[in-house]
């Protein structure tokens, strides 16, 4: 009896949780390789890559590049700003950290569509290009993630290392660049990855401020899912927007674990 309960605990429950995490994505994978799948068949009647050809015709590659550039721009702004703020929080360099903490956490509470809606009115009057406004708004929404990731990174780093480098003759800039930053690489990459994802995944801000003119990968998915009725194309677009971050995560995980192994040996 006890053995059965233990087996349920160690096998069935983890399997059910894995099921919860993975099953929602299964229709996308099946539809992306289906060329014919009419109900009530449980599996596609014909396999094929029609959806991929249609996605290419719809301009998925350009849209993916545009999403990548948007993610990169957001990461380039939010990561250094978050690293600076994270250093101040993590190494307790602020006499009164409460107000900066609240300000830098505030974007988590604000709805992106509300901020985009307000800014849209202003940028129309000021003539600010939509792309610039989208990058700025998304950088603001990425800042809490980069700041608090870097805060945790700096909390785990001993500031004495930087001081020791300075005692050994390094300038403060050299100490930061050659001692602290290499030690904070994992945190920096994580922060940059999170900021990139904010830009890469965004739909509402790009739609509201861009007004449909900035065609990123989520915009293509949104327009296909919203009314085309072409499930194969929608799934293919969705899979192609999910793969690059997944591959990047895989590479990062392998690199981080091999780095850990190297440092242990």
């Amino acid at each position, binding site marked *: 009896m006890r053995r059965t309960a233990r087996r349920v605990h160690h096998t069935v429950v983890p399997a059910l949780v894995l099921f919860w995490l993975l099953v929602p994505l299964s*229709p996308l994978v099946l539809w992306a390789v289906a060329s014919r799948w009419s109900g*009530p068949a449980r599996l596609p009647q014909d396999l094929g890559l029609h959806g991929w050809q249609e996605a290419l015709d719809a301009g998925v590659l350009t849209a993916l590049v545009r999403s990548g550039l948007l993610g990169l721009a957001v990461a380039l702004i939010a990561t250094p700003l978050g690293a600076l703020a994270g250093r101040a*929080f993590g190494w307790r360099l602020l006499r009164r950290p409460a107000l900066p903490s609240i300000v830098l956490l505030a974007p988590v509470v604000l709805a992106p569509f509300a901020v985009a809606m307000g800014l849209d009115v202003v940028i129309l009057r000021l003539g600010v290009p939509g792309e610039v406004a989208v990058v700025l708004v998304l950088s603001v929404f990425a800042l809490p993630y980069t700041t608090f990731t870097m805060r945790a990174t700096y909390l785990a780093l001993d500031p004495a290392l930087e001081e020791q480098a300075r005692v050994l003759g390094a300038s403060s800039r050299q100490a930061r660049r050659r001692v602290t930053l290499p030690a904070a690489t994992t945190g920096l990459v994580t922060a940059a990855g999170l900021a990139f994802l904010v830009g890469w*995944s965004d739909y509402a801000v790009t739609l509201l401020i861009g007004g449909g003119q900035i065609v990123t990968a989520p915009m293509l*998915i949104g327009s296909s899912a919203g009314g085309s009725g072409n499930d194969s194309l929608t799934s293919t677009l*969705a899979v192609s927007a999910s793969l690059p971050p997944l591959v990047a995560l895989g590479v990062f995980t392998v690199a981080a674990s091999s780095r850990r192994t190297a440092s242990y040996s």
Partner: protein
Amino acid sequence: MSALSSRLSSLDVGYPASGGGARLVAPAMLLVVAVTGTALAAVIATSLGLLPLVGRPRLSATGFTSLTGDLRRATQESLVTAVGATLLAAAMGMMIATIALHTGRAGRLLIGVSAAVLTVPHLVGATAAGLLLSDVGLAQRWLGVPVTAWPELVGGRWPWATGFELAWKESAFVALVVVASVGGRYPQLREVAAVLGARQRSQWRRVLLPLAAPALASSSLIAFVYALGSYEVARLLGRAFPEPLPVMAYRLFTDIDVASRPQAAATAVVATGLALVAALGALPLLRRLGAER
């Protein structure tokens, strides 16, 4: 060598002296204040008729009053979705974290899959949830339920599919935050509890749950405010009327009638106010749990 060590010991090798930190946080704060301050001021001004697209500015609360019934229904719809999704995300997230912390290889696999789920855009999740739960979706086909007997999970009376998608993705977020926050300390404390005779259930209730509570509460709050402000998931999976606040705001914002702009802004103000009230309401609990650390 001794000269060096005496020089090192004469230095403050703990945290660098306070001050100078203001310069480090200033750029990030400036960006946040400039963008969100401008945007929120503009949204409030638009909702009060002070920033019309055409015509002269005139202070008026019509944006709010002309929508009272719709705003109430949309707020209700948003709250139902956000509360349901958050409760499910917190429960599933805690379950994932518990298993991840209690099992070796399976735990690492769960953490990896959770991180992978986190990289998937919500729009992709919404697309997948639609293809899974609609009346001709994968679940209906695999379970062999007739189309006519399939419940209205997508676009029905209750926001099942919207709540499911938000809970699915946010559960991965909750799990990762909880594991990151307690991962290092839990194994040792659990061992001590086990040595002292605590059974598995007591270890979970008396050790893991209190240890995870701050991370669980703060990540659930983030999931809740995200669900309140999320547009694309409810747009794809929700019913046409009543819509949740973000969907209603976008519909009014893109209406050809420019008079709808103050109404759209009023809807955005209500959504923002709701999220702020939720965050302020949760602060005492978070502080009591020590989540600010």
